[in-house]
C-alpha cells in the first residue's frame, strides 16, 4: 500500500472504482463546499478537488481537501505546477499529508491566460511528469528533490495524473502515459470520453505497452446538459472530441438533459467492459447533483466499504 487511501483499497480489492469532482468556491464560503460535498457523499470512492481550474482563483485545493476530510469524504487533491515552484510544492505536500490527504493528482495546469489573473507570472518550475517524480521521491526515498534533505516524518501519497487520449499527437499519448508510469504514477484519470473508438484504440496502445498493469486507469465521463453545451465543448475546448452522433442525440431529444444522462450511463457501462479500465471518473461540471443519479442508473451503487 502506498498510502492506504480508500481509493487505493478499492483498486487493491479489484473493485470498479468511482471518483467524482468538486470545484471549490471563488471565495471562502465554506457552505458551498458543504453543499457540493453532500451531493457526492456516498456515491463515489473519492472526490477530486480542482486546483484553480482554468486559472480562475478559487479556494485552494489543499484547504478544500482538508475540509472534505472533516466532512467525511476522501479527497483527491489536485495540484498544478502552474502557480507553485518546487519549494511551495514540496511544502504543500508536507502540509497536505499532515492534514490527512492521501491522494494527489499531479497536473501541469491550464495556462494562466485562460483565467482571471492574466497578468500573473507563469511559474511552471516543474512539469507534471517531474512533479510525479518529485512526489514519488518524497514518498519512497524520504527525500526532497535534489536528494539532500531527509524528510521528518513520512509522506504517504497515492499518486495520480491525467492523460488525454484525444489530444495530439495521438500516437504519442500512450508513450507519454509510459513516461508518467516510469516517473511513479499509481493511477490516472482520462479527459472526458465521447469518442469511444479513439479511446479504445488508445487503450490498446496502452495495453500493448503493459501500462494497464502498472497503473490504474479511470475513464473520464461528463454528462452533457444540452445541445448547446455539446456543440460548445466540441468546438471550443481543445482536446475534447465529441462525435456528431452524440451531439445529434442531445440536440434532437425532447429532453436533452435526460438524454445526456442516458448517454453518460451507457458510456459507463461500455467502459466497464474495456480491458484495463479499473474505474470511472465522473466530472459533472456545474451539475454535481447528477452524480447520484448517474451512479445509480449505471449500477455502481452502493459504493464498497473497504478496510
Amino acid at each position: 500500500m502506498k498510502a492506504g487511501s480508500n481509493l487505493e483499497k478499492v483498486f487493491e480489492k479489484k473493485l470498479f472504482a468511482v471518483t467524482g469532482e468538486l470545484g471549490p468556491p471563488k471565495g471562502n464560503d465554506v457552505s458551498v463546499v458543504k453543499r457540493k460535498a453532500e451531493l457526492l457523499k456516498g456515491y463515489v470512492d473519492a472526490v477530486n478537488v480542482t486546483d484553480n481550474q482554468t486559472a480562475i482563483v478559487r479556494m485552494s485545493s489543499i484547504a478544500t481537501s482538508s475540509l472534505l476530510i472533516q466532512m467525511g469524504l476522501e479527497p483527491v487533491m489536485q495540484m498544478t505546477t502552474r502557480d507553485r515552484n518546487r519549494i511551495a510544492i514540496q511544502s504543500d505536500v508536507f502540509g497536505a499529508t499532515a492534514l490527512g490527504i492521501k491522494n494527489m493528482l499531479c497536473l501541469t495546469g491550464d495556462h494562466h491566460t485562460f483565467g482571471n489573473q492574466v497578468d500573473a507570472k507563469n511559474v511552471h518550475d516543474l512539469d507534471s511528469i517531474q512533479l510525479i517524480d518529485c512526489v514519488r521521491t518524497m514518498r519512497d526515498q524520504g527525500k526532497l528533490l535534489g536528494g539532500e534533505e531527509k524528510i521528518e516524518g513520512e509522506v504517504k501519497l497515492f499518486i495520480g495524473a491525467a492523460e488525454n487520449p484525444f489530444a495530439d499527437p495521438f500516437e504519442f499519448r500512450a508513450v507519454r502515459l509510459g513516461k508518467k508510469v516510469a516517473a511513479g504514477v499509481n493511477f490516472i484519470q482520462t479527459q472526458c470520453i465521447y469518442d469511444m473508438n479513439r479511446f479504445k484504440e488508445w487503450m490498446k496502445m496502452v495495453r500493448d505497452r503493459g501500462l494497464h498493469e502498472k497503473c490504474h486507469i479511470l475513464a473520464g465521463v461528463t454528462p452533457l446538459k444540452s445541445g448547446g453545451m455539446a456543440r460548445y465543448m466540441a468546438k471550443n475546448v481543445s482536446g475534447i472530441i465529441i462525435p456528431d452522433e452524440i451531439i445529434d442525440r442531445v440536440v434532437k431529444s425532447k429532453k436533452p438533459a435526460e438524454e445526456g444522462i442516458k448517454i453518460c450511463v451507457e458510456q459507463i457501462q461500455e467502459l466497464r467492459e474495456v480491458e484495463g479500465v479499473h474505474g470511472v471518473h465522473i466530472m459533472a461540471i456545474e451539475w454535481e447533483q447528477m452524480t447520484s443519479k448517474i451512479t445509480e442508473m449505471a449500477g455502481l451503487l452502493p459504493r464498497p466499504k473497504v478496510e
Partner: protein
Amino acid sequence: MIKAEQKPIDEILKYLDPYNKILLSGCGACVTVCQAGGEKEVGLLASGLRMARQKIGKKLEVLEATPARQCEPEFALEMSETIEKVEAVLSVACGVGVQTLVRHFPKMPIFPGVNTTFLGETITHGVWEERCQACGNCVLEKTGGICPISRCAKQLLNGPCGGSSKGKCEIKKEADCAWQLIYDRLKALNQLYKMEEVIPAKRWGVESRDSGLRRIVREDLKV
C-alpha cells in the same frame, strides 16, 4: 537576434518633454534587422518628433546617429562628442544598448525608445517570432533543435500537454504546439526514443534566469 518594437510616440514625447535638444541614437545591429531602430527608423522617428513638437510650439532639435552596435563600448563612445552637445539621449537600440550608454555617459539622461521584446527568428520579411529565452542550458539536442522553453507556453520539458490539438497550442491559434513540432522533427530524424526519456526539471535557480545577474568572464581574453 534581439527583437524590439518602437514605443508609442506619445510615451516617447512624455519622456522628452523637459528637453529641447536631444540625440536620437539607433543601432546597426538587431534593431535594424527588425526595423525598429536602425538608421531608417531613426530618420523617421526624428522627423515625427520634430513635427510633433513644432505643432505644439515647443521646438525640439534632434541630432541623429546610428553606431554599428550600441552595446559595444568602442562604438558607443564614437558618439561622445555629439552627446556633449545635447541635453538627453533617446536610444532606439535594445535595452542593452540603452544601458551601455548609461554606463559610459553617467551624467546624461538616456531614455528607451523601443520595447525589447524577445530573441527571435525572421520568418519572412516583416514577421518575427520568438525562438530563445536565454535559459542558460540549451536543451535543443534532446528536442530535435526545437526549443520547448521559448516555444511551449508552459515551458514543458516532457510535453505535450493535454491541450495540444491538431498541431496547435490551445492558448494561441497562431502558435504551433512546440511539442508537436518536436515530435514531428524527432520522428523525421528517427530519434523518437529521445521523447521516451523523462527529462528532469531545469535548474532555473542555478543555471538560468533566476540565479541573479548573469555574467561570463573569459580570463584568457582579458588582456
